[in-house]
């Protein structure tokens, strides 16, 4: 299935979870937050939340600003 992560198109197996997506991209898992289709997915639910085909995943962290 296709999942959009931070605007980039990625292919995943149909049973992929949020945690799999982070791991596959080598993203840090501390100091980041995840939203799927505009809803925050708390860290405790990353392993249990299944992604669906076409899901839009945003992974954010703190950067210099303000």
């Amino acid at each position, binding site marked *: 299935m296709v999942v959009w992560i931070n*605007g980039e198109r990625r292919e995943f197996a149909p049973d992929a979870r949020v945690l799999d997506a982070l791991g596959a991209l080598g993203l*840090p898992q501390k100091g980041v937050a995840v*939203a799927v289709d505009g809803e*925050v997915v708390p860290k405790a639910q990353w392993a249990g939340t299944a992604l669906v085909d076409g899901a839009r995943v945003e*992974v*954010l*962290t*703190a950067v210099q*600003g*303000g």
Partner: protein
Amino acid sequence: MRSGAMTITEQTGQGRVQDTVHGVPVQEEVGAEPDVLVVAGRPIASRLIMGTGGAANLEILERALIASGTALTTVAMRRVDAATGTGVLELLNRLEIEVLPNTAGCRTAAEAVLTARLAREALETDLVKLEVVADERTLLPDPIELLDAAEQLVDDGFTVLPYTNDDPVLARKLEQVGCAAVMPLGAPIGTGLGIRNPHNIAMIVEQAGVPVVLDAGIGTASEAAQAMELGCDAVLLATAVTRAGDPELMARAMRLAVEAGRAARGAGRIPKRYWAQASSPDLD
């Protein structure tokens, strides 16, 4: 005309000095220990709040943060990439500076609320510097979206510090919906134009029951001191330091200016006079 305008300033200043700041008499608060900024019940160990935006690199930022003496510093929330990682967070953790996530770049209440929720999740803080700007050219707050977002975030348990226009009415409404502070601009973000409407800032201070933080527009140290002399409880700035010729030295200047302005405010300035008044005794 000129002396008339001065009299108004003088009366406002005096009224406030003899009055109280958030229930504490000014004269007793300043000079006596401790004179600590408190936001929503949490003490913040500096009245200079720094931003991290605009620094050429983390090394320069680190030196500036140390020289500023800041205890609270803003960060923005952006898409992570494996290459850059979370360097600024590691720096703030190492310096033991509390992190204040902002919602910079958000144009609507919905975007700002989602960004604040992501920041809370990523950074494990309920503090948020709420920014909802109307357009790229002015970066001025959109008051309608701002108030809407503030209300939603307060209801969701956030400690909301809104970046707002220098509008006493909007500041009052933000306080009424439960914001923990109000942060009026001195001038548009990054302009360094100083405090364009000191009287509005003074009016916001006069009526506020929560801390007032002058946020944005500061260009140099005298303007940070002016904000504190007007009665602001703190100053938030980034560009003035991070894009200065010598960020570390400017950070030190800002720390001293905030301290000086705070002391001057508490000390109670002399009334302005139209004509001279000798300070030496008359000749015999």
